[in-house]
């Protein structure tokens, strides 16, 4: 456990030491601030429903930018050699790297709490806290899944660019699945799309519904991709 925290701490501080970390945070905050300002309607009840809906899409390009260097960069520079010969298990390395990236994402999302705070201060009647809580739940769960996909991809390549693109497109695919017209598909196709569609689940969260099935879906997906990341890392010893 200590080794996981050690790796996570190094990963997190490394992201703040590099320009890319600050650029990612600045870009995300700039875009979410624009979304917040543009989705508020004077006279309408205070709600962050649109804000959360669009922010979930904003995570799509941001999460791969966080995860792309986790293992790919280590492999490219050779710094994975001291790491993989330290007395830490492969799963410990993966969890440490992932936790570091996850904490960075949390640091990136934390300043957006100012938007609901503002709404609570200035709007009358006050916004319903349920959908806001569910919205943050949704962002964190989606971000966790995206980072796990990125960690898995990063464990299989030494190119950050490749890691970014190979993470971005599956996420895009998962998000777009929800927009496919189900009527054009056979029953089994509709069932598959409903099962893996992120958009539909994010829609539920936006309405303030925290469904256990959705939490299980994102958690299981995250665990699955972290297992893939472990396999990717372990396979480096055989390649």
């Amino acid at each position, binding site marked *: 456990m200590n080794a996981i925290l050690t790796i996570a701490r*190094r990963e997190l501080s490394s992201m703040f030491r590099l320009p890319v970390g600050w650029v990612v945070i600045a870009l995300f905050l700039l875009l979410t601030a624009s979304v917040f300002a543009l989705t508020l309607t004077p006279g309408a009840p205070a709600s962050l429903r649109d804000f959360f809906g669009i922010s979930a899409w904003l995570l799509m390009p941001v999460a791969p930018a966080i995860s792309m260097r986790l293992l790919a960069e280590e492999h490219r520079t050779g710094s994975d050699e001291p790491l993989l010969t330290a*007395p830490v298990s492969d799963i410990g390395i993966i969890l440490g790297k992932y936790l570091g990236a996850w904490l960075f994402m949390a640091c990136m999302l934390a300043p957006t709490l100012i938007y609901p705070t503002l709404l609570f201060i200035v709007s009358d009647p006050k916004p319903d806290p349920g959908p806001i809580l569910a919205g943050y739940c949704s962002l964190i769960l989606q971000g966790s899944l995206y980072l796990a996909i990125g960690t898995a991809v990063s464990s299989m390549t030494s190119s950050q660019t490749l890691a970014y693109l190979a993470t971005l497109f599956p996420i895009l695919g998962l998000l777009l699945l929800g927009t496919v017209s189900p009527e054009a598909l056979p029953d089994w196709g509709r069932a598959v799309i409903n099962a893996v569609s992120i958009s539909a689940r994010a829609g539920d969260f936006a309405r303030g519904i925290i469904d256990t099935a959705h939490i299980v879906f994102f958690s299981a997906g995250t665990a699955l991709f972290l297992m893939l990341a472990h396999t990717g890392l372990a396979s480096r010893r*055989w390649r």
Partner: protein
Amino acid sequence: MILVREIQKSFGRVDAVRGMSFTIEPGEVVALLGPNGAGKSTTIRMITSYLSPDEGSVRIDGYDTQTDSLEVRQRIGYLPESAPLYPEMRVIDFLDYRARLFHLPRGARAKAIGQVMDRCRIAAVARRRIGHLSKGYRQRVGLASALLHNPPVLILDEPSNGLDPSQIRETRSLVHELAENRTMIICSHILPEVERLATRLIVIAGGRKLADGTLGDLLAQHTAPQLVVEVQGDLQAFQASLGDVCGVRAIMQKPTKDPGWTILTIDTLPSAPDPRPEIACRAASASIALRELREVKPSLERVFMDLIESPETIATSTPHHAEATH
């Protein structure tokens, strides 16, 4: 003790290591010597458990690198080639990070970091970012990080690679100090370096072990002294007369700056009687003027070149084997 048994490793169709075996006793300083692509780094990476052998096994102090990998890693200090570090980290933060990875308790961490910084003479750069350090300092930081947990086995892959002469000298003296009380494997193709440091040499080429022993053993087993003879006169007849002298293996001829004088380099056969008296007699009887006849002691470089250029080595090192690196 390090036990390497019949390890093999291929990358695709490239056989990087083919059936390597050796044993290293505690306290030995062993150099793995070989040309680029010989399989040295791959062998070391299998010993450190960074890579898994396709076949064979490696055991360190009785622990198998496959089944007891974490135990093995706790016993090894490893400096990979080019000391890959995190350039954005400060030296002290990096050492603290490594100390935590090696499970050093809180109280022992600061003490261990202080000791290795003193030992590797990097205290002056403790607060500097690794990316801003010279290559020599980065190498020392890498070495310091490998020593933090005071490992009984130290493995250094090309510790002088890319350093300038003064940095090479500093690194060499540091490694010499470190070799005093631990088992050490040094991987290098810089012969004078290993000649000074190692108590035993293992020569590798084409993924195979070609020779294994002390410097004295290798010199005795794999090469014989050369003779340098400077002569003037009818060389054709003289060279022909040397053909049947016992102990003479081959003769090479090269001109000197003095007109009429020629240098003959004579390869002798190991464990044959000294042929110098007979050569002097033959020169006298052929009316050859003899200005110099001296023995050149065999060197590690010559042993090394003889081994890696021997017909057997070339025959077993097909082109794709010779390129094997990872």
